[in-house]
């Protein structure tokens, strides 16, 4: 537990409670850090996963603007050198993403290109299930990659919450656990108690004095949870009271999710994993089979502005070093247009990473457009490598039991 958090709690609950309160605070971080070994993972790092629902057209997000095959294949959707924000002489960000370009130049963003998996599925439900479970093709799998990490991270004596859904969608399979209960928190207020604070505090104090049923470990555990809930509520209320960043976030749905995540990170509750979403759940806004140009541009604009607002906010609060944002989409799209000014379901696509401890730049080559599989780019980086990187090198969780096999992590962090 960090010193600042201990001091903070001390001021919240008073000195007398501190001793009994400390076991209630996240120790699993330290333990999982020990378990991880590898590359000095920090114990208070946070992973923010952003789902781009519907299959983002990677080819029009990180655009191979000087590529002839690209130019020939996209008669209406083609973006040219004068449209994009160039990364290099071959690639550039979509015209609506000047802020991604800025983050990229500042080293706060990385692009992992060509991410996918062998024999990837091109149906929405199936592909999304594969990305969520990290067990491609296993229809019977009922837990998600993050859910399994949470079940692993949960400690029997530890009432902290390892992960939470922030997006306004049903609980995604990615967060599907076997045992732990993962909350869905659409606004930080939801984490505050509605009961009278002074009465609550009095009752907690009284319970502590009575040392109720000392040989009943369940009673002890519930007691710790009540203290943690009390402290959590206070911390969130403090953050909401003291920070007013209404103006820093635009009114987009994704930006609101990031605002909530930022508040929960500031409140220092020990949540390690947040799940956000863009595209409206369901089949998803990125599924542009028709009239793709304007719709895709609107979504990328929302993505770019929202992510930048989040990164800038965390940076100002000196929290960016603790945060890794990672986007994914169930698949990329076909290179060719479909006659309705849209594109079909594809395969490999780029994954975007943002944070304060990235090496920066592009990771991996842009897929070869002369070597497609059924009109879609092939992958060279398995998505489970990206997951392994996030789990092991960022969160400090062991990845093998979660992913079911050992995947080579990527060298992305400084």
């Amino acid at each position, binding site marked *: 537990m960090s010193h600042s958090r201990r001091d903070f709690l001390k001021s919240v609950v008073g000195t007398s409670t501190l001793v009994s309160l400390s076991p209630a605070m996240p120790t699993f971080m330290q333990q999982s850090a020990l378990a991880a070994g590898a590359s000095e993972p920090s114990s208070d790092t946070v992973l923010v996963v952003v789902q781009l629902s519907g299959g983002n057209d990677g080819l029009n997000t990180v655009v191979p603007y000087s590529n002839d095959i690209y130019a020939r294949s996209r008669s209406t959707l083609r973006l040219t050198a004068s449209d994009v924000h160039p990364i290099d002489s071959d690639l550039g960000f979509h015209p609506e993403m000047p802020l991604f370009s800025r983050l990229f130049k500042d080293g706060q963003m990385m692009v992992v290109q060509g991410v996918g998996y062998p024999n990837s599925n091109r149906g929405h439900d199936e592909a999304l299930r594969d990305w969520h479970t990290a067990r491609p093709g296993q229809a019977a799998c009922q837990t998600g990659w993050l859910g399994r990490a949470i079940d692993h991270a949960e400690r029997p004596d530890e009432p902290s919450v390892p992960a939470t859904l922030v997006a306004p969608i049903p609980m995604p399979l990615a967060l599907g656990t076997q045992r732990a209960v993962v909350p869905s928190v659409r606004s930080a207020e939801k984490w505050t108690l509605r009961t009278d604070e002074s009465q609550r505090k009095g009752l907690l104090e009284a319970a502590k004095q009575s040392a109720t049923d000392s040989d009943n470990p*369940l009673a002890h555990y519930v007691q710790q949870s009540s203290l943690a809930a009390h402290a959590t509520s206070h911390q969130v209320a403090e953050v909401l009271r003291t920070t007013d960043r209404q103006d820093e976030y635009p009114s987009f749905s994704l930006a609101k999710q990031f605002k909530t995540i930022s508040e929960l990170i500031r409140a220092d509750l020990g949540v390690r994993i947040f799940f956000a979403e863009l595209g409206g759940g369901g089949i998803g806004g990125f599924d542009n089979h028709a009239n793709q140009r304007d719709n895709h541009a609107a979504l990328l604009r929302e993505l770019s502005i929202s992510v930048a607002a989040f990164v800038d906010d965390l940076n100002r609060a000196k929290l960016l070093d603790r945060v890794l944002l990672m986007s994914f989409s169930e698949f990329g799209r076909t290179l060719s247009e479909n006659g309705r000014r849209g594109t079909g379901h594809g395969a490999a696509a780029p994954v975007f990473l943002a944070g304060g401890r990235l090496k920066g730049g592009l990771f991996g080559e842009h897929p070869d457009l002369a070597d497609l599989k059924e009109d879609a780019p092939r992958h060279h980086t398995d998505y489970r490598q990206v997951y392994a990187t996030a789990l092991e090198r960022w969160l400090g969780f062991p990845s093998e039991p979660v992913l079911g096999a050992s995947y080579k992590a990527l060298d992305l962090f400084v």
Partner: protein
Amino acid sequence: MKRDIANDVDPDWAWSSYQPSESRPWTLAMAGHLYRRAAFGATYSELQQAVSGGPQKTVDRLLRGGEELDAFHHVMDQDELASAKSGNMGSLRAWWLRRMLKTPYPLLEKMTLFWHSHFGISGSRVGDSQLMLQHIRVLREHALGKYSSMLDAVSQDPAVYLGLGAQSSRKAQPNEEFARQLMHRLSLGPGNFGEEDVSEASRAFTGWVVLRGQLRFFDREHDTGVKKILGRSGNWKAEDVLRIVLEQPVAPRMLVRKLYRWFVSEVEDPSDRLLDPLAEMLAKDYDTGRVVETMLRSNHFFSAAAYRRRIKSPVEFALEIVRGMEGTLSTVILSEELAQLGQNLYNPPTVDGWYGGRHWINSATMTGRCNLAHSLFARNGRYGGKLDPTAIASRYGYDDPTASPGFLVALFLQDDLPKSVREELRRTIPSSIDTDGSALRQFASNAAALTEFQLS
């Protein structure tokens, strides 16, 4: 210095009927304990009746169920079926909660909930509300009956095949899900069978296919060859596999262990020695009702080894409040809030069901429970102030505002609270007169937020 209280005891004594004595008296606290485990909490009159009637008579009543059971089930079944026909899985959750609240036979619903978690069939996988309703009815029908009959019925239940992802098993491509889950979770347990047993048993299930919501058997797709399952060879069919697995001595023990965790304690893992008498009893004819009865009547059940040795599930937490208040409220809203707290009826998280115990509680769900109690009792809010502590206290003669808080502590916590907490709780009632009952509502929600109220 943790004492292993569950495993120090003599099994014979443990499972003998509890008879109150001076050293082990029958108290309000014990009556509350029984109603938490064998029902969804008690009303004040049920508690009083239990205290005066003694433990065995109260268990008799709980095992038998109340008056006009058939009429109750008939009306409920009709309402549920009409809701299921509209295709709305959400309203089925609400109807089940309402049934749990209103039933004259709460033990039956408690056991149905146990089996729902045991089989772990999720509506989101089955995708058909009528099949899900049918599934829960199968579970209810056998809830206190023979486990062997239950497995027979379940093996004819299309929802189970859909829920396990085993809707089609053909000779050329046997689906292993049914056989695997049967051995892994429903009878033998991990380590007590091999991969060979699963694949051989799967051949016995070939030919069973769910088509348009109906389970059908196609002769030509059934593998009629000899299968070797758990060391026994023969041209086994599905029903033979069910018989063979239940004949294994590990099977009754696994089920008894699960029932122990459900009815007695989540704290210690009981020793085989403690469970053996019950396992032997179950092995005879798989009568789960008799094992449940033995547990509920036992010395061990009415001892410190069981008392407050479980964490209430969200459903238990909420329904005990509502039953205690003798009210009815929106079970549609309640079912949604319980899902938020981790218990989404008709949708267990995985086929392993709700693991529960400590996993029900973390700082977020604890906040959620406190806030749920708050809104259940709130005068205005989602539940429309339908639970009225002042009215219930007054119904039992506690009209005086100084007496009604004590009534609530007896009702919800059977007066079993540390002195300091009880005094502090009393202090939360303001000294001024509680003219509109708001202070008592707040008092009630404070009581429901206490550690002791999270324990069953």
